[in-house]
Every structure is written in C-alpha cells, then in structure tokens.
C-alpha cells in the first residue's frame, strides 16, 4: 500500500467515525442535557449563587457591660466597618446567645465591666468575641472587624499614653510604631468567595461534564454491543489512532467552544478578574481540552452501561474541586493527595487559569503546569490506545468470558433462571432461554 492510499484511507475512516459520533451525541437527550444544559447553564448558575461572594454587614450583637465612652466609641467603629453591622445591644450574654441560636445575629462582642477602668489605669483591657461557627465566613467577618478597629484604637491609646509619659509628636509616633508596613493584596483584595470558588469551578464543570457525557455515550454503545473498539477487528488495517483521534475531535470541538465561553465570556458577565490575554486563555483552553478528551476517553473505558457513570463517579466531582486547592492550599495537602491529584487535568488547569486571569501570569510563567498537562495528555492517549486493544480482545473472547461467568455462578450456587423468574417473571426466563438457544 502506497503512502498516498494509506492517508486517503486514514482520512476516510477518520471522517466516517467523526460523523457517526457527532450524530450520536445529537440524538442522545441525556448527553445533550449534560453537554449543553450543564455545560452552558451551570457556569452561569454557580456564578449566580456566589455572585455576592463578599459577606457584608454580618449582623452582630453587642453586650456592653462597661458602658463607658471608650467602649461606645469602639462599638460605633465596629458598626462602621464593612464587615459588621451592630444589630442590637443586648443587656446580657444570655440574651445575645439566644439571638445567635435563632440565627438573628452571627457574632457577639462582649465588653466586660472593667473595660474603661482598665484603659484609664493604663492596664491591658479585654474584649471578647463569640463567633458563630456555622459558616467560617461569619467568624472571619467578626474577627476582621473587631481586630481592625483594635489596631486603630491601639495606636490612639498608645500615643495618648506616650503623651502622658512626656513623649509627644513624631517621637511618640516613632515609639508607638517603630516599623511601618504596607499590606498589599495584589489579587482578590477583599477575599471574595466568588473569586475563590468560581474560578475553580468553571474548569471542573468542563472536565466533569465532558467525562459524564462521553461515558454516557460510550456506555450506551457498549450496552447496544457496538463499541468503537470492535472496529479494530471488523476492519483490517484500522489502527486505534484513527478511532481515538476521530472521536476525540468531536468532543474536542464541542468543548473548545464551551471552554472558551467559560474562560472568556462568563468572567465578563459576572465581573470575575480578567487579567489574562486572550492568547493565553486560548492556549490554555486548547491544552486543557485535549487533556480532558483523553482523560475522559480513558476513564470511560470502564463504563459498560449508560447509567453506571453517575453511580460510580458522581462523587468524584466535589473531590476534583477540593484537589484543585482552591480552598485548602495544594501545598498543605497530605503528600498522597498531591500525588493523586496528578491524575486529574483540573488540578493544573484550574491553577493555571487562576494564575492567568486573576494574577496576570501568562503561559510562559506557568510553564510547569502546561508541561504537566501535556505529559498527562500523552500518557492518557497511550493508555486509551491500550484499553481499545484490550477491549477488542475481551470482545473477541466474549463467549469464553460468559461461559466462565456462568460456571462460576453455578459453583457459587446462584440459580440464574430462578433469579430471573423472581425479578422479571416467566417472560424474562423465556427470553433468556431463547437467547441461549440462538447462541448455541
């Protein structure tokens, strides 16, 4: 066979498989729901849920037993911070606690009776916070607000005390704060929850919907006994390369469009940071989608029925999200999970996306992650080829497997016909007997 005819045949097979797979997707309502409903709506939905990612004006209660000018000023300043809103002044801790149990306030600030007295005695005065731990964001708000006010008050009190000791003006400033510092938060300045979770969740949605959809399709194909792996023995000279490239391009094409939508349009709609250039985002999309295609293709090799994917792998979605390190930092994870996260495209895809769009990095800065994604793609591509040949071998030896299974069942004391009679009635047994006769 000349090289020319080889390539001609190659492209013919490629287009044929491509065409078939594309048609299959558009005729499957489950896959359409996953690809187009989940792929398009879910990014919007999650951004909608987390749109006000900043918890502002958390209601708190104040118990002011000191009732002195200093404590009153402190309370006014807490009320003025972005984080907290002084909702009520309670007469005692019990009342405030009741309000917190009812969910009306999410924090209590308590000034003991000797607060003003201690300040005037130049002692250390205490303030107590009781934080609602039902969400850590409540705790963070109460802590941040009270501590910020504390730092500003601290400075005033210190200057006052130095003045009394006879140190005034610049000298007092120098004593009170010999070192100055600037706090800089270059990215996600206000610690918005939307930015944390949405940047991570967008690519996780892409990977997981592609995986579920592809598994749904290949599960159906296997269930209906027309797995793509059969093509290898059905047509002579057809290699696995054509099959996976043709099938892969179908999903790659759909998901390149979806990923670009998710990485460029969605952030614009919801005001997520967009520091990255289009070129970098496009490059990331291409690398990420190719990786996801081979990832999904490899793992969907284990799916033999159309519904099994949700039963077996749905629980992995939140795990993928946590492994990206969006909340719990990647470097604090146990070693085992750091290594485990190397099998997922999202770990590196999400980190690169965050760094590009929120921290203004480019693909060159993130070359480590890009290289990892590329290596992942190559490994998954090779593994997929391998599974195709293995599946082909299994399909060719199917009858042997079936017989072995039946023998094993017999040995274990399982009566297949009895089972069928109980589950599906006489008709099912009849059908089973007919099928066996046909085979023989």
């Amino acid at each position, binding site marked *: 066979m000349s090289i020319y005819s080889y390539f001609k045949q190659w492209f013919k097979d490629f287009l044929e498989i491509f065409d078939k797979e594309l048609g299959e997707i558009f005729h499957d309502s489950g896959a359409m729901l996953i690809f187009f409903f989940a792929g398009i709506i879910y990014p919007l939905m999650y951004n909608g849920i987390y749109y006000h990612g900043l918890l502002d004006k958390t209601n708190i209660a104040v118990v002011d037993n000191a009732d002195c000018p200093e404590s009153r000023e402190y309370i006014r300043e807490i009320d003025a911070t972005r984080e907290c809103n002084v909702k009520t002044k309670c007469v005692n801790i019990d009342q405030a606690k009741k309000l917190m149990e009812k969910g009306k306030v999410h924090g209590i600030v308590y000034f003991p009776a000797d607060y003003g007295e201690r300040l005037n005695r130049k002692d250390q005065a205490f303030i107590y916070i009781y934080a609602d*731990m039902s969400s850590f964001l409540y705790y963070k708000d109460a802590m941040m607000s009270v501590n910020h006010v504390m730092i500003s008050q601290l400075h005033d009190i210190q200057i006052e005390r130095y003045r009394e000791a006879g140190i005034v003006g610049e000298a007092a400033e120098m004593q009170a704060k010999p070192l100055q510092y600037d706090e800089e938060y270059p990215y996600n300045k206000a610690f918005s929850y939307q930015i944390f979770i949405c940047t991570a969740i967008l690519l996780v949605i892409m990977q997981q919907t592609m995986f579920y959809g592809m598994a749904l399709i290949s599960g159906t194909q296997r269930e209906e006994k027309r797995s793509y792996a059969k093509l290898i023995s059905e047509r002579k000279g057809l290699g696995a390369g054509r099959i996976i490239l043709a099938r892969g391009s179908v999903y790659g094409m759909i998901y390149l469009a979806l990923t670009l939508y998710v990485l460029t349009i969605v952030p614009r709609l919801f005001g997520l940071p967009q520091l990255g250039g289009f070129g970098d985002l496009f490059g990331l999309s291409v690398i990420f989608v190719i990786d996801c295609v081979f990832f999904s293709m490899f793992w969907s090799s284990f799916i033999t029925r159309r519904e099994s994917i949700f039963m077996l792998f749905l629980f992995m979605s939140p795990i993928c999200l946590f492994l990206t390190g969006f909340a719990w930092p990647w470097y604090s994870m146990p070693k085992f999970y750091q290594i485990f996260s190397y099998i997922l495209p999202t770990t590196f895809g999400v980190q690169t996306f965050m760094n590009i769009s929120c921290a203004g990095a480019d693909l060159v800065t993130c070359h480590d992650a890009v290289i990892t994604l590329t290596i992942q793609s190559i490994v998954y591509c090779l593994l997929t080829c391998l599974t195709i040949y293995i599946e082909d071998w299994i399909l060719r030896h199917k009858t042997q497997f079936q017989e072995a299974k039946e023998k094993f069942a017999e040995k274990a004391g399982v009566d297949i016909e009895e089972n069928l009679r109980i589950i599906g009635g006489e008709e099912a047994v009849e059908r089973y007997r007919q099928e066996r006769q046909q085979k023989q």
Partner: protein
Amino acid sequence: MGRLQNIRAVARRELRIIGQRPIYFFGTIVPLVLSTIFYLTFFGEGTAEKLPVGVVDMDRASYFSKALGRELGDNQLCKVVTYKSFVEARTDMQKGKIAGFVVIPENTYKDVLSFRRPTFAFYINGLYFVGGSMAYKELLTMANMGNGAVEREFLRAYGYSEDEIMGMIQPIIVECHPIGNKEINFNYYLSSILLPAVLSMIIIIILIYSLGSEMKYGTSRHLLRTSGNSITVAIAGKLYVYTILFSILGLGLIFLLYDWLDFPIAGHVWTMVLDMLLLVLSSEAMAIFFIGIFPVTRLAMSAGALYSILAFSFSGFTLPVEQMPTAIQSLAIGFPIRHYYLYYVQDVLYGTGFAGWWQEAVHMLLFLFLPLMVMPRLKKAYIYLNFPRN
C-alpha cells in the same frame, strides 16, 4: 395481611436484584467509603500547616532580617522561602507557589536603630481561600510582634516595668471564642456536612436507578404483579430494603464522626441520629419524585445528578444562603441537606434541644409528601411503558 406479604415479596425480589448486579455495591458503599476516607484524611488535623511564605531580603541578612526569617520559620504554620529579588518572589506568587511574601528594604536594621521608621511591605496571595487568610493572619501578627519587640527594647531603656510595658504595647486584647468549634478546625466544619451530602447524593442516584431500571429492563409489570398491582406496595417494598441499607450507612457516618472521631457536639448524638434518618427518608422521597416526573431512566438520572451536585452549594454551609441573590435563596428549601445543615447547627453547635430543631425536622418530613404526587404517574409508566426505555 396480603399487603404485608406483598411488601416482603417485593423486598425479597429487590435483594435478588442487588445481589445480581455488582453496580449496587460499587454505587453505594464504595463511593461513601472512599469519600469518607478522602475528606477525613484530606483536611488532616484540620489546620493548614507549613504555608510557604517568601522573604525578599534586600537588607543583606542583617540581624533584623535574620530574626524575622527565624521567627517565621519557627512558626508551625509557616515555611520560609528566601528570594534575592522582588521579581522572583512575584513570579512564584503568580504561579501559586507561595501564599505571600515580605519585602525587607535595604538598611532596615540601620533605620530601626536610628529611629527612621523603615517601611516594609507584605504581599498576600488572596487566590486560595485558606492559604491566603492564614498567610494574612501570620504576616500581620509578625509585623505587630516586630513592632512590639522594638518598642519593648526602647521602653526597657526608659526604665519601665514589664507590666507597664505590656500596657503600652498592647493596651487592648481581643479574645475570640468560636462557639462549637473551638480550634477552628476545618475538618469538623467541612466533613460534618460534606459527608451527609455525599450520602444524600448516593441515595438519590441509586434509588432513581433502582426504580428506573424496572422500566429499562422491562420488569416493571412483573414488579407490579409481585406487589399485588399496587404501586404503593411496590415502592414500600423497595424502600424497606433501601431505607435499612442507607440508614445503616448514615448511622455509621454519625457514629464515626461524633463517637469514634469525637467531633465536638454540644447536643446529643442520638438527636443527630434522628437528623440522619430524616435525611435518608427525605432524600429517598426526592428520588421517587424525580423518577415520577421523568419516567425515563437516563433523563431522571441526569437531572438527579445535576440536582445533587447543586445541593452542596445550597446547603449554605460555606457561603450563607442569605448572601445568595434573592431569587435563588428560596430554591435552597428544596434540598434536604439544607435542612439537615440547619438542624445540625442547632444540635451540634448550640445544643438547643427540641425547641431549636423541631422546625427543621418538620421541613424534612414535608418532603415525604412529594412521592404521593407522582405515584399515579409512575404506575402508568410502569404499566404502559410508554416512555423511551433507556
């Protein structure tokens, strides 16, 4: 008596199905066990440790910058990475390799000694939730401690007593008492809701599959024949098996968390047992509702999957529900795990007893009315099989 016998017959039949198809084992116990192991070990001790924090030392390893590096390095929470230039540190932060860094400008130590109030800067990487806020806390504490240390030396030189010095350096002390989670442990916080949410997801998916596969494999008529042509008996028989199975898993979870691992609990573990049983029942009700609305297995399963993934967000244990857009807020009541969470807050964090959680228990019981609405429709689908089978 006939009904009870029929229920038992359906249950026996269901056990045969479960025994015959390994997917039931791989779809219930395996995901739950793997998730439990994952979340409980992932958060480890519940506090992030060894955050990499950069120090850009332009003061050429003076006494001050060395002391600062030591101070950070001694801290259990931090791990110091030193950089020679600002650009190197910034690039590493853009890559997400460090949680933050401090820049110590030239001549800092000299300036301190000669009262020139040097300014140093710290940069926080706010892109990773826990890492960012911890780094912020550590660096801020360190800056204030550094200030205090210098101040103390001066005050000592002036001849102040130690008590007076403390009054000068730290006139106000803020003490925080986090209620119900004193160590601010992330494991207690997240696993308490994530694991029940995973269980609820498994219940919904498995039960939809179990009810839907009757139509898919064309065995639904035989099921009705076994149940004496009553859909209520058929579902009761199936639930008989699944409720026992899922309750065992759920109670295992509760006792694992609150008894074996000793997660702090202000109320009583038996009230949480009730909470878990209600979660199991209401999730089952949701599953029947789904297959009743879409009597097509593939559609019901896809819809159930999309719904149960959203439940993680709508439970409101990370971003509180009242912070979500108003139009979306009301959707949260349609998720059993949301009520489980509110019940949990009352019992585990506050220990308020019946007065605190009865409303949530009622809310979860209300879910049990959902199946009643769709049962006639499901029965028709079972008899006529007039929907796409897959």
